[in-house]
């Protein structure tokens, strides 16, 4: 029995705000403005209301209304900033989503790569217990504080998704590999204890470490992971119909295209330009669109790269 995707629901706000009109723009220096101009982000989606728990719950509810099912397990990918301390965002999502059948918990600490780690964990949970039929995964993207521009990384947009991993689902999760390197754990941080939320701002401890050392490690790690995943599936790069990754910047697309000698699918660039970076949701949105609108056929392979500056690197091969 294979394991794959049951259904995916992505929520994107109707409202779009041009990056050039973001309120924080007036406080930016020349380097940050130049970064924005070349980032590849044109607009970002902005929800009128909602927090991570309620937005994730809304995505879950919509998915279950449209596709049905009673998930046995519910996994929330940890948000950039929790709605509450001590309380539980995932249980809030469970309540808002009316996911009564599932045991809920969170996968956290891997940044954007969390969604890929979650679908691999979902597969493992189904393999581990034959009585389980479905694992629900959810996540909501909101900025950490009020600032959406994460120089020199990306620009944050709002969004939320829910997806199920089920027995016999398609695309089939054909191969998966992942790695983390704890030495980058504090490269980015938000000092939330020293000031009120409007003052929260993401800091990069070392631009050099991000732009050079992490980039070079990513090149080596992702290259090896891609080779390993393709080898596990007994295929080569020539057999891959579409390659997807998270939507961070135009330069990141170019970097990985050159590193891996694989073209990144045009949907990724389109989503980056329109919605901005949605964190762990990027690869799910890209996968949903390429499966439904990408002109692929049963048996085609989709390679999904996912990484974060935490640092984590994850590669999954899906078979349509």
């Amino acid at each position, binding site marked *: 029995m294979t394991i794959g995707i049951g259904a995916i629901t992505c929520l994107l706000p109707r409202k779009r705000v041009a990056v050039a009109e973001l309120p924080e723009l007036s406080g930016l220096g020349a*380097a940050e403005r130049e970064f924005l101009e070349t980032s590849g982000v044109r607009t970002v989606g902005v929800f009128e209301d909602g927090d991570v728990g309620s937005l994730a719950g809304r995505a879950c509810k919509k998915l279950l209304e449209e596709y049905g099912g009673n998930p046995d397990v519910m996994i929330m990918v940890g948000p950039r900033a929790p709605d509450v301390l001590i309380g539980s965002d995932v249980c809030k999502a469970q309540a808002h989503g009316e996911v009564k059948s599932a045991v809920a918990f969170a996968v956290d600490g891997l940044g954007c790569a969390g969604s890929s780690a979650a679908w691999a964990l979902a597969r493992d949970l189904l393999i581990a217990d034959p009585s389980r039929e479905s694992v629900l995964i959810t996540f909501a993207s909101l900025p950490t504080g009020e600032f959406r521009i994460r120089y020199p990384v990306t620009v944050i947009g709002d969004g939320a998704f829910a997806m199920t991993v089920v027995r016999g689902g398609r695309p089939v999760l054909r191969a998966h590999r992942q790695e983390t390197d704890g030495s980058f754990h504090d490269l980015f941080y938000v000092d939330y204890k020293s000031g009120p939320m409007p003052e929260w701002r993401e800091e990069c401890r070392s631009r*050099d*470490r991000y*732009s*050079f*050392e992490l*980039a*070079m*490690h990513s*090149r*080596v790690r992702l290259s090896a992971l891609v080779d390993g995943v393709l080898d596990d599936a007994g295929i080569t790069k020539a057999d891959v119909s579409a390659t997807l990754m998270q939507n961070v910047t135009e*330069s990141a697309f*170019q*970097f990985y295209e*050159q*590193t891996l000698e694989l073209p990144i699918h045009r949907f990724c660039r389109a989503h980056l330009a329109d919605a901005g970076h949605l964190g762990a949701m990027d690869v799910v949105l890209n996968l949903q669109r390429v499966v439904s609108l990408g002109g692929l056929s049963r048996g085609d392979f989709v390679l999904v790269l996912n990484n974060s500056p935490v640092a984590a690197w994850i590669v999954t091969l899906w078979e349509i």
Partner: protein
Amino acid sequence: MPESASEHLTTAAIEQRLLGFLLERTKIEWEVGQDLFDTGVVSSLLAMELVVFVEKTFDVAVEREDLALHNFRTVRAMTDLVLRLGKATDA
């Protein structure tokens, strides 16, 4: 053509190859001790091309702790790295 590790790589030869690559890619004449990253000219993409150029041209593997910015900050630093890795390959 890659420089074989067994060939005698001189400091001057390595520097010339690196300066030539940087001139071609940035259209700037660099000094061997000049900081490549301070100027903002060298992006992540160009840095990756630089690492790949070093590996392929001098037949060395730059891995793990050697993938540090201080080894690529100047042409002189890259030259020292190539000489060190070349010796390690020979050993």
